[in-house]
């Protein structure tokens, strides 16, 4: 039987103009929370429709209800205070949360379940449950309460674990726990791995972790010890130099790799040929049925049109590779 080569997405999608407007109006108290939720659901439907039209295999819900992947949890959990925005690059800003008390749930667990369930109801294809990992939530917050990073990370790990269990109980087959900050401090990699062990312990799901924009050179192959089934890494942004790092050791049989083949921080539209070349290079390292193809990172910084174009290029490139290599 022919091997399969699958496509997926990392997480966020651009918010359609109608939702951007609804969010602004909600902030100005011109519409109710209920109205905002309706707008988010409409946008989610559009995100799923797009992915289905393109033929993507494992879908995301697009995070229409989230502003930022860390701030979203900080806003909904106890122990955090919101700060004024901090710039992350270019003209992009985020509200970097401040930990001012012990972190905990505010109400019942399962913050992310409702949006996952609503999205999954739209499609027969699997939708990933999307979480942010404890190491990244800690690293992208100011700590004004805990005596050290370790104690904050472990408290967060227990919260993320509960959240993951709630998603699994709701039926999420794929659960992604993003840890983009994990590549920040090689000396803390073990701590991040320990925290992920807490998150994924007894979790009945296909686990994934997305990691991007860091010094992979310093953490590879140690990163393979991260207790998740699939690593989702960005490669296009660095002209696929990541693949040379991955060549260092044979790719483990029990791990999957999702590889980013278009740069999400560039307006430039990649050609099908260059994306195809990247996929073929990845296939030299990881067998097709352990490989997923996706964009480098979340698409939220692109316009809707740019996101569609980039995903279309990926799909065309994957189709050609499938045909030429006899894959499904």
């Amino acid at each position, binding site marked *: 039987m022919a091997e399969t080569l699958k496509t997926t997405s990392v997480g966020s999608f651009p918010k359609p103009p109608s939702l951007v407007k609804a969010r602004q109006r909600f902030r100005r108290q011109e519409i109710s929370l209920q109205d905002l939720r309706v707008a988010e659901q409409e946008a989610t439907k559009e995100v799923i429709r797009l992915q289905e039209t393109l033929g993507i295999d494992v879908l995301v819900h697009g995070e229409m209800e989230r502003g930022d992947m860390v701030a979203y949890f900080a806003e909904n959990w106890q122990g955090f205070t919101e700060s*004024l925005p901090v710039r992350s690059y270019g003209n992009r800003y985020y509200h970097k949360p401040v930990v001012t008390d012990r972190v905990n749930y505010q109400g019942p667990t399962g913050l992310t379940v409702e949006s996952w369930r609503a999205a999954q109801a739209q499609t027969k294809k699997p939708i990933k449950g999307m979480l942010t990992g404890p190491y990244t939530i800690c690293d992208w917050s100011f700590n004004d309460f805990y005596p050290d990073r370790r104690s904050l990370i472990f408290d967060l790990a227990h919260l993320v674990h509960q959240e993951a269990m709630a998603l699994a109980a709701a039926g999420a087959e794929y659960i992604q726990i993003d840890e983009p900050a994990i590549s920040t401090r090689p000396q803390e990699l073990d701590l991040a791995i320990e925290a992920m062990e807490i998150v994924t312990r007894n979790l009945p799901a296909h686990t994934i972790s997305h990691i991007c924009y860091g010094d992979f050179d310093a953490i590879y192959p140690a990163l393979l010890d991260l207790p998740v089934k699939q690593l989702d890494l960005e490669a296009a942004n660095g002209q696929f130099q990541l693949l040379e790092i991955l060549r260092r050791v044979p790719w483990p049989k029990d791990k999957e790799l999702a590889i980013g083949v278009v740069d999400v921080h560039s307006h430039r539209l990649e050609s099908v040929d260059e994306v195809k070349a990247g996929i073929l290079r990845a296939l030299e390292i990881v067998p097709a049925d352990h490989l997923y193809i996706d964009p480098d990172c979340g698409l939220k910084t692109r316009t809707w049109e740019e996101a569609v174009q980039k995903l279309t290029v990926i799909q065309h490139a994957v189709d050609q590779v499938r045909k030429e290599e006899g894959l499904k």
Partner: protein
Amino acid sequence: MRITTLGSYPKIPADNGPSVRTAIQRFERRSIGLTQLEQTIRDRTHHVIQLAETHRLDVTSDGMIRWNDMFDGVVRDVDNVQSAGLLRFLDNNFYYRHPLVRGRLSFQGGVVRWWLTQAVALSTVPLKAVLPGPFTFLQLSQDDSYHNRQALLDDVVEVLRLEANSLLDTGIQEIQWDEPALAYYPEWNIREVKETLTTLTKNLSVTQSLALYWGSGIHRWIEPLATSGFSRLYLDAVSDTEVVPRLRAEPLPVEVGLGLIDARQVKKESVSELVKQLEPILRVQGESRVWLHPNGGLELLPPDHAEGKVHVLSQVRDAVVTAPRNGGLR
């Protein structure tokens, strides 16, 4: 004791002042024009300078409001290097476009010079230029052309010297070279660094300083770089706890700056604790030769906290000035 800030400053207001963020958004939506965008950037720069005036900083940067990251201005001034993909800036949740070297570097100039000319015109406080040092440039860029580290380093040094030279008549009073990579990464050839930085600073007729921050390897540079042509060393004493004991131990042939104010955490420092830490250093190095500053640019903080840190700087300075001192070293 004198006080200064190190470089970047938030481009958005703590209250309802001019916001470069909003102006850029409006500019991109075409609801304002070039002139209005330019005016907002100037207003924001002016705010940074006013803050320096209010808190009586001895030297200030212009807040680097126009820079996207520490390489931005220089990359615009140099031919055959471009701003490429985003990379994490050392261990921060901040991303810079890494310089991609595509041919032999040559100096075009004009951009940083124009930016600083504008800032100097707004300022009554002595203003410094902040430029990336050659080793940080080399470490955080990608070479697609030279394939020869030494040849590239030599050209980087030369191009940075040309940049520095082009700034001399803008009215700036100091050039601060930033070398976070020397603090952050462990493996350097100390002799090579010392020789290269001596070449970099040679015969430039302006006060030059070196800023080392965000790493635990700062203390080992103090001795070798105290005699490399810099008038002062700005040292991050938060990330490297060895810095304070070193400065307490013996006087140095260079002015020293202590980055004891944490520019990456919102927690507010205690003024009395800081004074206590500084006292022995003031005694050993001499009060007029010691500076206090944050341990990096303030742009990694929300604007209200950034402003708070500048306030702490001035409070510590005032407390040191009025503190009774045995032996009266002032």
